[in-house]
């Protein structure tokens, strides 16, 4: 067998170089800025997030100025405040010489919290949200890419509309950067809690993680542009197509209309949205590889992609089979739309969502939990992890007949290590343990039981659409302050997965833990004596 000749990237060399240089420049700016006295990765992260998010405020306030909206000044001032705070924090802190894993986890979590605070400030300053809890939950929905809101988007100013859409888009871009830039530093103990299963493909895209990042970000930007253009061609107004392109490719789901995509009532627009959501749920490295070599067969060869597409097809079929009446072109389109919107955790709406049969509802919920492919920007638990869990169950079944058998779990051509397996399982159980109390809180705070369960599952997967008596997008509005806080927490945990959050929390409580352990060992020794 002859070795394959190395294939060079042919396309978009210029764009990639530009993105790469931009990213490197940003990195160097942060590095030059952070020469303070306090060695703290958290400080650098928080500062960097604030410094980098301030331009978004500026862009949106300018857009609002041009449009003649009322949010020009509040956005500008908040942006300035965030920028100053960011510069201050960065200036005071510096990169630490050593970085224990728990600190890295903590800085990722704090970075997300910093973004949350900035977006909350914008919501409060512009008066879009009157209470702190509403502002928090809106901000959480923005940075996690969840389509849950208490606000009528048609009443928003252009600046705020763009701000929210850009927020979802940038947060998803940040996920890509974390995927490529942070996870490899964690070694096997990855942030993705599955020992690198999700990121393995991403990491090997280029020899340097910096250039991998540049490639993926370029691809992401290009896809956004393509989608925006497609929306425009399909007959969507200019501003709407920008907003929808940003929120579709990032699997966010915010819309400029109250009725989401469905309010345009146009088949071409819905097909474009379906395509965009499908892409959002697909692994970005896979798309990159397939497009670079022009080798569409790569998609077919990927086991995960086959399952992903198969799930969509199966659920579409079931939705049609369980609905009343014969399938028509419209009902087929809407069934595909619902399935893709759920599995890619976008949460766009079209067609009659309340008319979905009970069985279809259950299946859509399952798709929401499954989520997109690994290394995609979609939320959810990820297709690959569920495939691994399926293999695990199969192995345990075989083991109970042959108790001494030793078996390795394979997925496609790669085998999954035992550590990775344990991580995936731990993550699933921890997430469900967190889900149950939240359902309890949501149901105590005004939702019916069906609404509480479906909404909790949906926002944990960053979809945002719930079932039950309230209608798909009304759940957040029906909740009180406690429910809003619980929902915000659940969204953030769903986005950055529960292990880092708990580990970061554990890092805070470490001194107390050590004290307790010492006390217990001391007590045990006394008992033994």
């Amino acid at each position, binding site marked *: 067998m002859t070795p394959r000749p190395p294939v060079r990237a042919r396309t978009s060399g210029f764009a990639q170089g530009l993105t790469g240089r931009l990213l490197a420049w940003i990195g160097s700016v942060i590095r030059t800025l952070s020469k303070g006295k306090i060695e703290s990765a958290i400080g650098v992260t928080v500062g960097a997030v604030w410094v980098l998010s301030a331009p978004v405020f500026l862009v949106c306030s300018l857009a609002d100025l041009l449009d003649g909206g009322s949010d020009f000044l509040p956005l500008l001032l908040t942006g300035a405040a965030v920028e100053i705070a960011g510069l201050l924090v960065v200036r005071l802190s510096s990169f630490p010489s050593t970085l224990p894993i728990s600190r890295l986890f903590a800085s990722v979590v704090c970075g997300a919290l910093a973004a949350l605070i900035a977006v909350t400030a914008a919501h409060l300053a512009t008066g879009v949200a009157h209470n702190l809890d509403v502002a928090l939950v809106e901000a959480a929905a923005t940075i996690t890419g969840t389509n849950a809101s208490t606000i009528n988007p048609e009443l928003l100013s252009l600046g705020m509309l763009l701000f929210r859409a850009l927020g979802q888009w940038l947060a998803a871009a940040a996920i890509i950067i974390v995927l490529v830039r942070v996870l490899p530093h964690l070694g096997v*103990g990855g942030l993705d809690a599955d020992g690198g299963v999700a990121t393995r493909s991403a990491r090997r895209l280029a020899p340097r993680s910096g250039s991998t990042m540049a490639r993926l970000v370029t691809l992401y930007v290009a896809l956004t542009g393509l989608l925006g253009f497609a929306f425009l061609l399909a007959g969507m107004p200019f501003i709407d197509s920008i907003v929808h392109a940003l929120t579709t490719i990032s699997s966010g789901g915010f819309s400029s209309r109250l009725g989401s995509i469905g309010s345009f009532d146009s088949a071409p627009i819905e097909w474009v949205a379906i395509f965009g959501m499908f892409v959002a749920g697909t692994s970005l490295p896979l798309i990159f590889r397939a497009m670079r070599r022009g080798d569409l067969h790569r998609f077919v060869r990927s086991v995960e992609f086959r399952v992903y597409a198969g799930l969509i097809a199966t659920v579409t079929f079931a939705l049609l089979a369980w609905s009343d009446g014969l399938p028509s072109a419209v009902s087929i389109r809407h069934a595909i739309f619902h399935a893709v919107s759920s599995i890619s955790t976008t949460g766009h709406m079209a067609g009659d969502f309340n008319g979905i*049969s009970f069985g279809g509802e259950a299946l859509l919920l399952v798709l929401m939990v499954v989520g997109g492919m690994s290394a995609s920007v979609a939320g959810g638990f990820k297709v690959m992890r569920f495939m691994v869990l399926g293999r695990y169950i199969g192995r345990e*079944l075989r083991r109970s007949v042959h*108790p001494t058998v030793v078996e390795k779990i394979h997925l496609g051509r790669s085998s999954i290590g035992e550590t990775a397996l344990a991580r995936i399982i731990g993550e699933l159980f921890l997430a469900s343990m967190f889900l149950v109390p939240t359902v309890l809180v949501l149901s105590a705070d005004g939702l019916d039981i069906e609404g509480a*369960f479906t909404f909790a599952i949906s926002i944990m997967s960053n979809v945002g659409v719930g079932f039950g008596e309230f209608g798909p997008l009304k759940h957040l509005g029906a909740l009180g302050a406690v429910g809003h806080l619980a929902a915000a927490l659940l969204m953030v945990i769903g986005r950055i997965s529960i292990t880092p959050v708990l580990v970061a929390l*554990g890092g805070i409580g470490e001194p107390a833990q050590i004290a307790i352990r010492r006390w217990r060992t001391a007590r045990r020794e006394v008992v033994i004596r």
Partner: protein
Amino acid sequence: MRRIAVTPVRVAGAALIVVAAAMAISAVVALLDGGGGAEGLFWSAVITVSVGTGLFFGSKVSPLADSALAFASVGWSWLAVSLAGTLPFLLTGVIPWVRFDDALFESISGFTCSGSTILSDFGSVSQGLLFFRSMTQWLGGMGLVVLAVAILPALGIGGLELIASEAPGPTADRLSLRVRDTARRLWLLYGGATCIVALVLFSVGMSVFDAVTHAFTTVSTGGYSPHAESIAHFDSFPIELVLIVGMLYSGASFSLHWHALTQGIGAYRRVSEIRWYFCLIAGAFGMLLWVNHGEIEWFQNLRESLFYAVSLGSSTGFGNSDYILWMPAAHVTLLVLMLVGGMSGSTAGGMKVLRLQVIFRYSFRELLRARHPNAVIPIRMGSTTIEEQVAAKVVGFVLLYLGLIVAGGIALSGLGVDPVTAFSGSVSAIGNVGPALGEAGPTNNYLVFPRAGRVVLMALMALGRLEVFPAMLMLVASTRGIAQLRRRRRLTHSTFSH
């Protein structure tokens, strides 16, 4: 007479004989009561006993014994028993032959100790049949195979695997050196507990019939009641208290009870699972009290909350009011109770507290490992350590269990049941609880599910009672056994011909 050497056939025969005895007793009850149905019960006993003896004496134990064979034995005998259990309903004419699936539902619900019923008019059902219904739960509670091992010396098979594959929980506790003695002790304790509960129930004002049937279904955590309104029929706080104590006792491990009887009460303190079990029920009770506060009058709230926390926490499913009228948060609490169920080694269903404990420890170990990637951390439960292999088995079980709940929920809602009823019905069926949420509450019966949906529920109940693995491996093990048998026959043929 040449006997075939297939263990599952022999075990199934033994189990059928036991069921036939139960039918005969019920026939006597029907005769004493005079409410009819004695004839049908008598004939079903005759049919069952003849099939049972045929199977039992026509077979012998296979020379080889392994876990697969144990799985197959338990699985097939449960199938046989469930089929036999339909006969009394059909022959007494309570359920017509065209609704055979309903009879099977009632029978499976009985033997698996679920307590979901499709009977709507209890007045027209004879007392003998109601007695038989309770008795199926009592027999299914501790396990028919365990009983067969205990009382039939001629069965000639042993192996803890056989008991382990029927007893709820990941491991079976050996109470004595001989498996038959272990089985005997378990049944002795079980029978003793039933007698005590029956006596106490009688002394607080139940009739003899009610006391005995309720004792049967309390100790087995089944939940069938001869009255349509379940425990609400009596509307008596003392009776509810007795039942609460009985259900709490039966939801805890019977081998632990045996240790406590022989070694003193300190045995309870050595096991951490029982602490979790009580904490879970107490926590749910507190939660229910809090949620229902202001909705129901305080004493009624205390009474109903305590009763339901114990009834669903031990997967019994008795009802003393309609909790469907409660707040949604109370429903979520009840659903968690249904999901977890009682302790391992008890007669209760559900996922078992022990497994929840293992899952907790397992997940938190992963958290620790995320921080210290090279740490070696054992999974501790109180003072004991769980082996990795057992932990992996528990994890696999829980994943499969949750997967089956989701699959059942999807299937039921696909058949047109609303999602709350469908998913809670799925949880309730696989946990062998009985009542569910939504339309299938404690005051309703399972006719709210469509006919095909009841088939799904039947499968879930059987899978739940046999703890999923034996039921799923039944066919695998059987095909393997048949292949082995054929190979051996071919071998003997070739030796003869040489």
